[in-house]
């Protein structure tokens, strides 16, 4: 393991980006690998000596911006301009998902789960059931616990799309995850589950 392959590399003086010299036997993936390296290098230049800080240190500017976008999204939602709210949530989401990768992934999960859940609500208000379902699903996937609203919205969209069995499954899964909050915040989930079960029954009766 004490040997390595000397690669035909050179550096562009102006842009400080590495490139592979043309060689007779080109190495597969070298170009893409170098491209990733150069992109990371450009991002790291913002730090002193290009050393990224430990994951716990977060750039507060971006967090503030995300929060602001989300808040204005909420405001737009309250004003019933749902399209506007959705647009703002989407912007916030973009900001959140493009966080640099050396920052805590837990934070991305937390933020994205919340924004997805909000956007699901906006989609529901506009009766975009499929999109609402997908957003809520994202939210549940990112943060299954303590996320009653997302579970509820996901099941609601499924119910509206007449996918009753799926809605039931999601509701059961949701109440499993929210077992700790049973009796406190999961009232909506139970009510919806009752509705769905009733709808399934009705459907069976109608088809029988």
């Amino acid at each position, binding site marked *: 393991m004490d040997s*390595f392959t000397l690669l035909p590399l050179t550096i562009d003086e102006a842009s400080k980006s*590495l490139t592979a010299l043309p060689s007779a036997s080109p190495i597969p993936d070298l170009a893409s690998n170098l491209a990733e390296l150069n992109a990371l290098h450009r991002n790291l230049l913002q730090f002193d000596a290009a050393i990224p800080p430990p994951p716990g240190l977060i750039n507060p500017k971006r967090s503030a911006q995300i929060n602001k976008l989300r808040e204005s999204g909420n405001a737009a939602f309250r004003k019933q301009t749902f399209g506007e709210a959705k647009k703002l949530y989407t912007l916030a989401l973009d900001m959140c998902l493009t966080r640099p990768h050396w920052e805590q992934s837990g934070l991305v999960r937390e933020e994205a789960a919340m924004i997805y859940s909000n956007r699901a609500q906006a989609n529901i208000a506009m009766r975009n059931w499929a999109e609402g379902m997908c957003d809520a699903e994202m939210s549940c996937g990112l943060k299954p616990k303590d996320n009653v609203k997302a579970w509820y919205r996901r099941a609601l969209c499924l119910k509206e799309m007449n996918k009753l069995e799926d809605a039931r499954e999601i509701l059961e899964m949701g109440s499993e995850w929210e077992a700790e909050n049973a009796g406190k915040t999961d009232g909506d989930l139970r009510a919806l589950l009752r509705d769905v079960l009733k709808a399934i029954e009705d459907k069976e009766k109608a088809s029988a």
Partner: protein
Amino acid sequence: MGLNLATFIPPILYLVVIVGSMATFSSIYRKRKAQAAASMEPWFPPSLSRDVYLTLLHLPDTPNPPKIPDSVIRTALLRRATDVIQKAITIRQSKAPLQTLLQRGSVGDDTWTQFLQAEQEIDAEIKEVAEDAMALSTQNAQWAQFIFQTAAEMITNDRLRQKLEEQKLKSQEWSEWWSKKTEKVRSEFLASEGVEDLVQGTSVNPAIVLTSTVPTKAGHVSDEDGVLVEAEASSPLTPKESKSSKSTPVSTPSSTPAGSVRRKKGRK
């Protein structure tokens, strides 16, 4: 005296033969073992990030060397660290299962030796990276203390984004399925309302209206109508309609959500 010497010869000869044969055996055995180890297939494919990093370090030795700034070398080291951590995780995760397989005899001894060798190599590489990070630290940042933390976080983040991308593709399937369904219901509604002339006469019309309005605000109105109609229409047109509203014609990605969540749950 001469008699004495003659009596000593057999035991000495015996010793020489024994020691000699043992020495030859051990040298041959070791040589074979070394050969086997050398010819062993490496556990991991050669690491490109390691090659890049080491090449950067060795570039000054080549004729007319380009000047490599430290920041580039640090970036290369960080990328190497992520690769090493990735491998270390793989090793740690596969050690216990491999051990059980070995005990059951499902896996040969050579695989196990190969695995142990890979483990040692990874340990050595981690040490190497830590030392280099120490050398590249500044006064303000003792990089060796957190380079692996950063690297591990980068891996987690990469995986998270990948998962999200996959999920997005699935979501698109859902949206397509739903818009197809609403479109179908709507055209059936138009047909049942006796607007066939319009549909057939200017057959392009409803399609254009639908596709152009689905994503905008007007679209949801039509969606709503579609759902209502479906409920009503299902009784008169029973067999065909109720079937189609269930799942048959357009493939439904119905069971996908449950699976994805479970996977995420397991990873956590």
